[in-house]
């Protein structure tokens, strides 16, 4: 028997069971007499205790044993559950998680000292039922520390066999005739309808209800699934090539073999994609616990409701939306739902409701997070935006309610009157938005004052293979446009083509059903100058970016095709115009357009709404950097220096305890979002002395992901919107010059120069 295998199995099994426990405890608090629930909780802890005994994890065994004792008294009805007990038991769950993580990393349970927890559990277990009730009233639940560590997520996915993956369609012959009757050029494989997919989900849900069926599932390494997905991607490309070649052939045997290959490939692709699907419930299971802890911490009463937890998403997407969703949920509890007394005064039930909903719609997943809290007051948002200098007051007046509410997505915006340590460091919703957009999703917010806020998220099912429209530029080069962004195609011919496009202040527009549609020429989007255009035909691809529409004028429109998204090489990665590349049927590479990026570059929508609005206001000054209205982060560097950083250089504001700062070579680094981020102390750069005092460091994060760099500042003072009018060019290295902000001379930091000169640049240039 292989010891390692058993430990691995133990870790996987325990992690699964613990995830369910969080929810079970929240449920138990509501209904302390639910015997089935209690028995389930008891069994989980009991099993962990028993197995860890075999595997020699003594500390884990002792903690679990103490928890089990208390649980067994609860199960027998000798004791009644109260809040301190729930908290202590949750601490058992947290301690168990921590030790399991330790086991996974080092092979031992860490031997941390849990004697106080064990003593607490023993004390609770020996209390008589009467006093426990009194104590429960006298001492309301102490805040439970949030788990410091995420539960270990072993790289394993449960794969449904037979039951879920349909066999390749054997009805080949019948459907073949139909497909053949179609144009041979049609290369879009039949996408399964939403209805069909849903029935698959139901099947899965049933499987979960009947544990006996679980034997038909087996565990597969995620790495293998990733390889399979890659291979299927290659197969799809090869299939596309063959299909294209077949279009020129007349041999009927060959044509029908190709059609069969086409069908099987599509089925296989869907099957492999399904293996990577996970129900969104996997991340939702953590929310009841998070909400419970948070509600206790900030004195709210919150009930969480979930609908559509079986809705499945690609694993990579599940991982990508985990943090944004958690942030939204925290926000809703912290800022959305009012304290119970306030709710009662408004005639609402004391308990707030947070509801999560997920469902498929048109090849996308919709996720809605709604609370019945105070809602967002658009007037308040506008005032805040104006006071923060994000927009001017006359622009605020022009904004509709929905647009005003959407201002919360701007960088540096926070609606909370006081910034709490729970959510909202002043940079919150903008990060949620950025992260969701990064995976091709969209997020919107709807709020009614007094009755609540709903966040609506739309995300694609998968990122690996997407349907796209193939278009051509003036040079004949082909580009792929993801179909999710596509609204419609408009073709203008003859007189219409010559007169249909109007120009308003130099920007071309087309009047589409009475609405002005701003236009972007594809070649101009690439800044390659204006090519010779055919005055007789104009092809407009109507796209949506954010909540706006614009038209992209292309030379020719080809076909729609399932394309396999390949990441761009390092050299092209930074270009906002392209989202990736793909290989076309004829073996040539086509670039995938980043619709959002094009819209931003062409200023159809702005990179951040504040800039669009301020550019509109700057009017004649637009394009003249010295006079542009620009958002600046004002901070203190070292003891006295007042300096400013352009806000568009700022990705996030963070705070790190000095203890988390490590030294790597001559470089200070900190672990941040799974990467090692180099830190540059601005005080050292400008004064030669490092930032002193306190056990927290304010850090301005510049750049994204593994290219981020943290700039340590003394204190963040303000965010202002100023016309940059450099008073005095600076010869000081790393300083662009001096500007007057709030009647005080402030040095404007040249972030590129600072980052470029510090040794930190080596760290990420090498990455």
């Amino acid at each position, binding site marked *: *028997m292989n010891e390692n*295998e058993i430990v691995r199995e133990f870790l*996987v099994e325990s992690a699964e069971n613990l995830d369910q426990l969080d929810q079970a405890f929240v449920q138990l608090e509501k209904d302390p007499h639910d015997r089935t629930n209690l028995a389930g909780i*008891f069994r989980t802890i*009991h099993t962990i205790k028993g197995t860890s005994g*075999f595997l020699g994890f003594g500390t884990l065994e002792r903690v679990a044993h103490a928890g*089990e004792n208390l649980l*067994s008294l609860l199960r027998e009805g000798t004791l009644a559950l109260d809040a301190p007990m729930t908290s202590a038991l949750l601490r058992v769950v947290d301690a168990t998680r921590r030790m399991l993580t330790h086991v996974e990393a080092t092979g031992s349970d860490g031997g941390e000292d849990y004697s106080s927890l064990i003593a607490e559990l023993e004390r609770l277990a020996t209390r008589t039922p009467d006093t426990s009730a009194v104590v429960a009233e006298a001492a309301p639940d102490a805040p439970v520390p949030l788990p410091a560590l995420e539960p270990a997520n072993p790289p394993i996915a449960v794969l449904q066999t037979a039951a879920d993956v349909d066999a390749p369609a054997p009805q080949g012959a019948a459907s073949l005739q139909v497909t053949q009757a179609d144009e041979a050029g049609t290369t879009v494989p039949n996408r399964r309808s939403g209805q069909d997919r849903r029935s698959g989900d139901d099947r899965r849900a049933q499987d979960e209800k009947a544990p006996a069926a679980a034997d038909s599932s087996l565990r597969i390494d995620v790495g293998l699934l990733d390889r399979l997905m890659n291979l299927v991607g290659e197969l799809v490309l090869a299939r596309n090539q063959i299909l294209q070649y077949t279009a020129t052939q007349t041999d009927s045997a060959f044509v029908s073999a190709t059609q069969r290959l086409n069908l099987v490939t599509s089925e296989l692709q869907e099957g492999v994609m399904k293996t990577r699907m996970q129900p969104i419930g996997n991340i939702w299971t953590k929310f009841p616990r998070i909400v419970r802890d948070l509600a206790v911490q900030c004195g709210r009463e919150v009930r969480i409701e979930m609908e559509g937890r079986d809705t499945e998403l690609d694993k990579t997407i599940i991982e990508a939306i985990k943090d944004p969703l958690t942030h939204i949920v925290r926000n809703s509890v912290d800022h959305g739902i009012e304290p119970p007394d306030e709710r009662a005064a408004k005639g609402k039930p004391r308990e707030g409701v947070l509801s999560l909903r997920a469902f498929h719609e048109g090849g996308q997943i919709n996720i809605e997070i709604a609370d019945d809290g105070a809602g967002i007051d658009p007037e308040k948002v506008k005032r805040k935006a104006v006071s923060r200098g994000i927009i001017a007051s006359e622009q605020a007046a022009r904004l509709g309610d929905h647009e005003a509410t959407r201002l919360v997505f701007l960088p540096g915006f926070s609606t909370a009157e006081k910034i709490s340590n729970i959510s909202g460091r002043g940079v919150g919703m903008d990060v949620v938005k950025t992260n969701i957009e990064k995976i091709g999703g969209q997020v919107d917010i709807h709020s009614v004052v007094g009755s609540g806020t709903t966040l609506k998220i739309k995300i694609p099912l998968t990122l690996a293979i997407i349907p796209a429209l193939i278009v051509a530029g003036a040079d004949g080069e082909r580009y792929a446009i993801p179909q999710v962004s596509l609204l419609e195609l408009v073709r203008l011919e003859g007189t219409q083509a010559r007169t249909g496009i109007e120009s308003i202040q130099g920007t071309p527009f087309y009047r589409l059903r009475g609405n002005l549609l701003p236009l972007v020429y594809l070649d101009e989007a690439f800044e390659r100058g204006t090519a010779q255009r055919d005055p007789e035909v104009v092809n407009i691809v109507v796209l949506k970016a954010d909540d706006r529409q614009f038209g992209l004028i292309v030379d020719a429109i080809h076909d729609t095709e399932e394309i396999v998204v390949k990441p761009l090489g390092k050299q092209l990665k930074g270009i906002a115009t392209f989202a990736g590349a793909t290989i076309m049927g004829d073996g040539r590479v086509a670039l995938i357009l980043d619709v959002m990026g094009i819209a931003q570059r062409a200023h159809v929508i702005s990179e951040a709404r504040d800039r669009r609005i301020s550019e509109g206001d700057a009017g004649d000054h637009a394009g003249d950097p010295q006079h542009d209205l620009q958002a600046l982060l004002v901070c203190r560097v070292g003891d006295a220096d007042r300096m400013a950083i352009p806000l568009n250089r700022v990705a996030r504001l963070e705070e790190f305890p000095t203890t988390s700062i490590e030294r790597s070579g001559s470089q200070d680094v900190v672990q941040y979002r799974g990467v090692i981020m180099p830190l540059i102390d601005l005080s050292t750069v400008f004064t030669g002395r490092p930032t002193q005092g306190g056990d927290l460091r304010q850090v301005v994060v510049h750049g994204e992901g593994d290219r981020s760099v943290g700039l340590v500042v003394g204190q963040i003072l303000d965010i202002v919107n100023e016309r940059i009018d450099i008073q005095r060019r600076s010869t000081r290295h790393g300083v662009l010059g001096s500007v007057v902000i709030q009647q005080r001379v402030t040095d404007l930091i040249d972030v590129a120069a600072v980052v470029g000169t510090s040794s930190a640049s080596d760290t990420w240039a090498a990455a």
Partner: protein
Amino acid sequence: MKALVVDDSRAMRMILTGMLKECGFDVLEAKHGREALTCLESNPDTTLALIDWNMPEMNGLELLQALKADGRYGSLRRMMVTTESEMANISKAMDAGASEYVMKPFTVGVIQDKLRVLGLVS
């Protein structure tokens, strides 16, 4: 010889199966009492069952009672796998037809001793 391990934990089944294999058994697995009954139905030649107490669907004690009520399993030796906290109830299990018990955690040696008592290994 065939043995059946009845336990709801995959890790625990792996441990017990490993031990029984070392003792020379062909090992079947079930994750609760009801599944154990189905398994025995199709493997009537099973000579030993290692039974956990705490399981969903049908627990260890219920399984023992069901086995006792069914005349077909007279020759099946039933061994309870128990923890210290369950020791108080062990007499109930013995009444319900368990012939031996073994307390977690244990070693292969302990199981072998018990099997020797039952006359299943020499």
